[in-house]
């Protein structure tokens, strides 16, 4: 199992997600994630590509807009089209939408403020390479930390996501219900994460790598990495 974490100028969760991946890789048979600088358009073949959180290019202009044009992204798109799983977390999700690998856009939070806190999200489908270690309907506690996480798409786009089973996670109360009070940023239909049509690309605003270690206060994020490593090994 080989994994690449792409580093853009301004990425700041690259190390965090590498640590979480490494933990699951070591538990699942070994290997080391590789950090790939965004200018390296021809990085080695891997089984998983991760776009980490952070503020690529300072999030200036629009979050993820400039990173989406980094040299490496052409290659990421090509591999994604061949079915290599791509996981974008937070800024990584923003980059994936800006690059057109996922539909919709992430706008300024409805409250206009940056929000960093634990939220609850509901797993909408466990039938994917990313979520196989969760149960459908399971409620997770995972932190968010973003200024632009307000998922937006037009009604047709939202309907396509619903119909295609492309909604990965929704913000919910701790009992799993999707109230608007549980929506931290105004996202359409409480969307916290989405898949592409083939469910090989996942973008999510919450940070599973931040609660994958009991010393940090929780491990609800860990099965996502364990599941990926198991499925891809």
């Amino acid at each position, binding site marked *: 199992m080989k994994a690449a974490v792409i580093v853009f*100028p*301004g990425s*700041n*969760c690259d*190390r*965090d997600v590498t*640590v*979480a991946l490494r933990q699951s890789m070591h538990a699942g048979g070994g290997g080391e994630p590789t950090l790939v600088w965004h200018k390296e358009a021809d990085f080695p073949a891997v089984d998983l590509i991760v776009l980490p*959180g*952070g*503020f690529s*290019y*300072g*999030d*200036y202009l629009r979050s993820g807009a400039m990173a989406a044009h980094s040299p490496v992204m052409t290659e990421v798109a090509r591999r994604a089209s061949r079915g290599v799983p791509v996981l974008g977390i937070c800024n990584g999700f923003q980059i994936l939408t800006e690059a057109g690998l996922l539909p919709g856009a992430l706008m300024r939070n409805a*409250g206009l*403020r*940056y*929000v*960093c*806190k634990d939220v609850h999200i509901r797993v909408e489908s466990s039938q994917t390479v990313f979520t196989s270690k969760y149960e459908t309907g399971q409620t997770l506690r995972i*932190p968010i*930390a973003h*200024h632009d996480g307000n998922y937006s798409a037009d009604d047709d786009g939202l309907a396509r996501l619903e119909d295609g089973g492309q909604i990965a996670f929704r913000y919910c109360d701790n009992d799993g219900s999707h109230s608007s009070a549980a929506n931290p940023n105004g996202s359409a239909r409480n969307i916290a994460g989405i898949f592409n049509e083939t469910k090989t690309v996942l973008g999510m605003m919450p*940070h599973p*790598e*931040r609660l994958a*270690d009991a*010393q*940090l*206060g929780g491990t609800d994020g860990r099965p996502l990495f364990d599941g990926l490593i198991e499925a891809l090994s």
Partner: protein
Amino acid sequence: MSEVTPEIVAEHGLKEDEYQRILEILGRAPNLLELGIFSVMWSEHCSYKSSKVWLKTLPTTGDCVIHGPGENAGVIDIGDGLAAIFKMESHNHPSFIEPYQGAATGVGGILRDVFTMGARPVANLNALRFGDPEHPKTKQLLSGVVAGIGGYGNCVGVPTVGGEVNFDPGYNGNILVNAMTVGIARTDRIFTSKASGPGNPIVYVGSKTGRDGIHGATMASAEFAEGTEEKRPTVQVGDPFTEKLLIEACLELMETDAIVAIQDMGAAGLTSSSFEMASKGGLGVELALDKVPCRETGMTPYEMMLSESQERMLIVLKPSREGLARRVFEKWDLDFAVIGRLTDTGRMVLTLHGETVGDLPIDPLAEAAPEYERPWEPAPSRPHIDAAEIPPPADLGQALVTLLGSPDLCSRRWIWEQYDHMVMADTAGRPGGDAAVVRIHDSDRALAITTDCTPRYCLADPERGGAQAVAEAWRNLTAVGALPLAITDNLNFGNPERPEIMGQFVGCIKGIADACRTLDFPVVSGNVSLYNETNGHGIPPTPTIGGVGLIEDLAATATIAFKAAGEAILLIGETTGHLGASLYLREIAGRHDGAPPPVDLAAEKRVGDLVRGLIVQQAVTACHDLSDGGLAVAVAEMALAGGLGATLGQPDGGLPLHAWLFGEDQARYLVTAPAAGVVLEAARQAGVPAVCIGETGGSGLTLPGTDTISLSTLRAAHEGWMPAYTGA
């Protein structure tokens, strides 16, 4: 270049005798560029002319100290070949003028002080003081400052893990924004600004130089007056993205052997950074100003030397390493320019297109920097108020709800949820506890970090207040199970030319020094901010203390949350019911008088050492120190954090109940344990007073003599104030 007139000298904030000294040093009149350089180097901000004699009295040595004050930041040994590097710095005046950018660039500046020494920054904290919430400016200042701190820290990817906030009319015209950064470095990879090797190239890296904040440093030393508005263009805009690149590029270069010395460009930018490097090395510098990367066309040498553009560093390289260094900075898309070299002349020579535009001797300028023993008057002492003199509240429970929902005691969640406090995935103790706990990466050890100061105590009795600030920082670190190691301080005061203000400064320093000595808690770095005064109204004396401690095993720490029902709640330390200068007195009785609580440093140490021992042995399940608002507030905070109520019994002894509940006696902690016996026995052996005061359980808080108050009522009061105030 224009002629230097007396008006220009005065505009540069130089006194007549200071100007005479310049004439003596140069043996001629300075030109405008040279005058500008003298003025920033001799400003209060850079020269510490009013405070130096007193700062020398602080204890700065200890077993853990690697570098005390004098470097960009303090350095302490934390074992395993690692060092913690930290400092706190103020950005008060800029934040008052433009809260977002002022606060943001404050964070940027303190980060540079830390990574310039070779440390990866791992935590930011911020100590904030605002005016009366009812003052028309306060709300916007609070929102702007918090957004600015978050805007910068979140983007650079360093977690903001703690801080403190007070509101007091004394800050109406002068808010305080003190930012602290803690970094971690290998002890064999610590970099300083001491230049060596005449001929070595001097390299400029980072952002381009613009006309930002020219005279910012002198502005920070000038008392505010009406008409502040005109100084507005001196505000700088922060670029956290470039700072992030600068951190990564500098740390990458620091992995090589290319660097001789490195210094960030802070206040007085290129002037003070080049000056300091040469002066520390006993050398000279030659700078070709036409090589300085500029953002604007037509910038003058004066502007280049005095610009305070952000996100810039100066590096002395080994001569053969220029190519290597250039490649690193170009990889990160940062400007890189060789702008000069070290010389053995002991002079700073500035040229533009080959022509000398400035020529100053370095050592004489540094040595002749003014140093004042300003006259001071001790603060008048206030009488002790006997608790029995202060009437009880109509309703004890209501008094608690009022206190918990008051501006100084309410939850700070609205603030810290705007800060990324988890990035770097090592935040083991998040905001909301007594001290932040940041894991040392790839280990089971951690740093505990806190900032503390109680300005109303410092105003009431500067010496006691200074000691209390140190004691509270020490106690907050202890309360999470850490061994307190060292502090940084940020001394914020009014106009030192007024003897009563200087008296506050002297008193606080004495108290700090005393506490540091007794608690073995040396000062390793710090910052002084004077002239926090508007139209003759000085701020309350505010010596903010930033403390760092070490946790050897993350499995043996404590948090404030109640863990299980049916556990004993124990009060450790002596309770006398001291209400003078307390929040109860202010918020409930409407009085601001009285002496602050006595600070018994020996008792502080005895009690703290006992509590730390209990935490490390995992004999207690929760721990919280007692401070503002006293026992009742602490119990409520523990209950809210755990989502679990408690019932307290009637105390023994003859104290009035409100004094027992709300008194602010120092050197006290609350702990919980499955059974009281172990704790009581350990306390008995240590000669520390301890008493079981109640039991956890239920969904409300029952205080003696009151009906049960539900946690939801307490939570609504505690969590409600700040969001309602800021309109969120």
